[in-house]
């Protein structure tokens, strides 16, 4: 059993509050991403779990045992660092074996575990080389193998793919998923890249300004963002936010009417995923002025405005829309999120 309970963790650096009472529970064997822009506190939280940073207050429990005050080595975890932190003065073999050697494992076990981890990451042929003879991607594999070799209860990963080029990142992402699925280790994965978080995670915790804004499955977080920040941070293009008037509990968009959430006042923010629309003739459709049309091959990306507010929408590549056109859009009523214009928080879903 190695679930992780993060209980009201606070961390301040002088007057700056990096983490404001963050609580989060990660189940045994679960893969959870901490996702957010730089400076949101995700790495600080990870380092507090690892024991590399000390929390100002709060508790961290790994497998129901409080680890606050324990040095990193006694927390039963492994970590993959952003810059790999592969020891340059040791061979790849010794790097992968490092954790086992520290546990005073016998040579036979070390050999077996190193070979197993090296096999998983396809680095068998580099075992007797030194890391400075390896490429970034290969070093990354060594760092992951080193972490897996100790069969940790908990695996922490701090932006492990951010230093790789785009193609390699995609390849490593797929491979990580394969490897980690078979290992079944409780994993916390810090990233600022939403596609990584979406692709790898069982659940995502979106962080912003030292607060967890939403925790949920990738699909849940994508379709039902709890806040305007989450909707804007996840998805490419980001979710569109259009402020619209409410009259008699109804919102009018072209020829269609939507039931506004009952908590809403005179105005409400309509959160709309760029791909949750289809072309409709005017005046039935909602009017959009297209400023720039970019054919992307797989789809057509339109940038423009609705109600004089900036939006980005995606249409099938087969549609022909040109820059400067005015078009009508039909909204997918099941994929609309309603948000409060004041708090930026989303309202509970209303029956369509």
């Amino acid at each position: 059993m190695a679930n992780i309970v993060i209980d009201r963790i606070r961390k301040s650096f002088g007057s700056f509050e990096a983490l404001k009472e963050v609580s989060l529970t990660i189940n045994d064997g679960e893969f959870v991403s901490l996702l957010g822009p730089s400076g949101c506190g995700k790495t600080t939280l990870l380092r507090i779990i690892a024991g590399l940073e000390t929390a100002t207050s709060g508790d961290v429990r790994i497998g129901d045992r409080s680890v606050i005050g324990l040095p990193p080595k006694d927390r039963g975890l492994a970590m993959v660092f952003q810059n790999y932190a592969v020891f340059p003065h040791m061979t790849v073999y010794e790097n992968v074996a490092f954790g086992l050697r520290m546990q005073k494992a016998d040579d036979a076990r070390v050999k077996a575990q190193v070979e197993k981890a090296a096999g998983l990451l396809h680095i068998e042929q580099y075992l007797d080389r030194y890391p400075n003879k390896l490429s970034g991607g290969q070093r990354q594999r060594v760092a992951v193998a080193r972490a897996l070799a100790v069969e940790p209860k908990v695996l922490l990963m701090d932006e492990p793919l951010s230093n790789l080029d785009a193609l390699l990142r995609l390849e490593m992402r797929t491979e990580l998923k394969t490897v980690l699925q078979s290992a079944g280790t409780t994993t916390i994965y810090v990233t600022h890249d939403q596609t990584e978080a979406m692709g790898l995670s069982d659940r995502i915790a979106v962080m912003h300004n030292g607060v967890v804004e939403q925790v949920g499955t990738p699909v849940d977080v994508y379709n039902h963002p709890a806040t305007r920040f989450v909707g804007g941070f996840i998805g490419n293009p980001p979710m569109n936010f259009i402020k619209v008037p409410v009259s008699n509990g109804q919102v009018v968009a072209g020829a269609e009417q939507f039931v506004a959430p009952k908590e809403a006042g005179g105005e409400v923010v309509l959160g709309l995923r760029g791909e949750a629309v289809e072309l409709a003739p005017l005046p039935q459709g909602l009017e959009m002025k297209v400023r720039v049309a970019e054919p992307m091959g797989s789809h057509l990306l339109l940038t423009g405005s609705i109600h004089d507010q900036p939006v980005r929408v995606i249409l099938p590549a087969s549609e022909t829309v040109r820059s400067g056109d005015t078009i009508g859009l039909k909204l997918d009523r099941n994929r609309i999120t309603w948000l409060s214009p004041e708090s930026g928080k989303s309202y509970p879903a209303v029956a369509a």
Partner: protein
Amino acid sequence: MPGPHAILNYTRRLRGPMTNNRTWIPYLLILPSVAFLALLFVVPLVQTIWLAFSDNGLPSLANMRTMAGDLNFLPSVRNTFLLTIAVVPVQVVIALVMGTLVAKVGAGRETILWIWTIPLGISDLAAGMVWLSILQNTGYLNSLLFSLGLIERQTSWLTYQTPVALFIGIAVAEIWRGTAIVMVIIVAGLNQVPKEFKEAAEIFGAGPWTRFFRITLPLIRPALQSALILRTVLAFEVFAVVYALGGRNFPVLVGEAYTWQNQNQNYGVAGAYAVLIMVISLAATVVYLKAIKVDPERLP
């Protein structure tokens, strides 16, 4: 010496409630060096000042008066200053030339830099002896001048009757020895200036001199500042090279301190000289810090 626990408690009080239980580590690590410097830097510093300003255990200006009234005092002050003024700028210029030249070289750069840094390992006493072999009566300078027909017999350069020649000889020996350290600091500084800055200036039409004075020089200010401070303080300490070349024909401040201490056994006057040298060195440092402003916001 307070133990780690005392320091731990001290830092606890200093920082209020502690969350990180390992804040005493850095204090433990710097403690030995602090204790050492306190015992062998701060204490002797205070002792020197006391030595200089006391007589038979009472505060007194007697040592200062003895120093100021000594026959060699004014010449030694004058000589030390003249040497510093003559030597330091030349060293900086040669070092800048070396840095600029070596930047234009690809292959062989390492070897050239190594040759230029050799004097870094040479003491001022050895430098004095090296130049003695050149400047003495039957030395290589006279041989050269003789074979060129410029002199008819061996000429003395290092006596008290030839103060200008002696001064030049000492200055040359100091320049020869002390340029290496300036060069190393300046080349280290130049290495940190990205090539793009100069290339950008070149594209916008700046010639080599403009590039040097408008781009390079301002960007190596920190290196220049530290080289100047280090070299000037060392120049005020000049002693052995003078002694090796001219004996006591060319009094300088540290030489006088040495004489009062070892020959005259008068520690008080030696202390007075020491205080004077320290005051001059500190003043020079302050002048450099003020004159060459290093604004971190204007550096890359």
